């Protein structure tokens, strides 16, 4: 094979013209790319340069120094916030025995009196006594009819006992409390 087998030289005017046109297009594309890239680069640089981050940070420092002048107030705010959060938690979760007692004894007939009342480990046991049987049934009905599962559950009447020495009827109850 010799050099005549590879013929990369244009031989006619048409091909030359096409080549010149291609060259012109290549130059235009190169020119466009150069200016586009330069333009975008300058624009992005200017935008980055003009972002007001420094101003915002300066304003932050200014406001922080203003706040530090009110540090005592801020301390009070956080302390009040901390106490109220804790208190609302404790009040919501502590044993609500005043409500329980009110629930059990607000309607205690005057002939009945509380003899024993024990609450420990979520268990309630109490006895009431009466010298007459008349109000006993209504109180049993009342206690067994209490529906407040958030405070008291599974109320059971453990029985009625007559103490001959004192001539009293003893009424025992058991329940779970929360």
């Amino acid at each position: 094979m010799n050099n005549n087998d590879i013929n990369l030289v244009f031989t006619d005017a048409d091909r030359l013209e096409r080549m010149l046109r291609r060259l012109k297009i290549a130059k235009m594309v190169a020119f466009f790319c150069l200016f586009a890239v330069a333009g975008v680069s300058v624009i992005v640089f200017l935008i980055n340069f003009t972002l007001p981050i420094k101003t915002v940070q300066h304003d932050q420092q200014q406001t922080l120094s203003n706040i530090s002048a009110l540090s005592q107030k801020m301390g009070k705010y956080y302390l009040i916030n901390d106490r109220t959060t804790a208190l609302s938690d404790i009040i919501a979760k502590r044993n609500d025995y005043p409500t329980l007692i009110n629930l059990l004894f607000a309607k205690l007939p005057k002939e009945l009196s509380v003899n024993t009342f024990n609450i420990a480990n979520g268990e309630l046991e109490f006895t009431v006594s009466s010298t007459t049987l008349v109000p006993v049934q209504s109180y049993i009905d009342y206690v067994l009819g209490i529906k407040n599962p958030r405070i008291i559950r599974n109320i059971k009447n453990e029985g009625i006992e007559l103490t001959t020495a004192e001539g009293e009827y003893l009424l025992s109850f058991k329940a779970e409390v929360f």
Partner: protein
Amino acid sequence: MDLSNIKFPEKVNFDLNTAIILYRHYKDYIIPVVVIFLSVLILFFIVNPQIKQYLSSQNQLKTQTQKLQVLKNNYSFLASMDDAKSDADMSSLLSVLPLEKDFVSSMNAVSYAASKTGVSIGNFQVNVGDLEKDTNPAGLTGILYPYMQIQIDLGGKAETIFQFINVLYETAPIAEVSSIKFDQATATLVINYYYKQYSLENISSQSPIVPFSAQKENIIKEVSAWSNGSSQIEIPNFSPTNESSSSSVIIASPAASINGSPF
């Protein structure tokens, strides 16, 4: 078309002369190609990082602006905060939930409730616990705050004992009765007095400060209305008889165990 019949030149001869010929014919293309190539390089290595930096700066600006807004809001809230009210609120809240075990205030509250309801106070025992550490020994109630436990014997009818508990629940410091043992005219109560330490580490001027919620305002209002045992009853030089730094128990002296207030 049978590809097997196509014959390829066995050897391509590309020598210096060929290269020179090619260069002469295509040299006008070299500058545009180099320019395009450089443009692409500039796009990838200079413009692209700039655009990335712009996007990250934009995010940073957004974050910083939000932070500034929070700071400005915090400042305007603090500037408009009523000093007298916040002092009063803080004082009530600290008396209700002290920063540390407050034995004197607790006993004041017991004494106040007893005097208010006519209950007599008998022996009492205080489980001070470790004075150095927070304790929540029982975990019975599910309340995750440390407390000091007082076991106290009371004398009185059931109604007065129940009233005593009612008053105690609305007297500072905050108390919780964990067990009641009432038999005829005597009762033994176990009372938990809660406290909570406070750390300044929680304070940050960059956290948003918002007005207290209605629930918190209600709590402040509720506990401000509670009686403050210590402000109403003077305790003359009360000093515990036995107190040590770990799990100590204070037992009332015989003089304090007789009917009536030990104070």
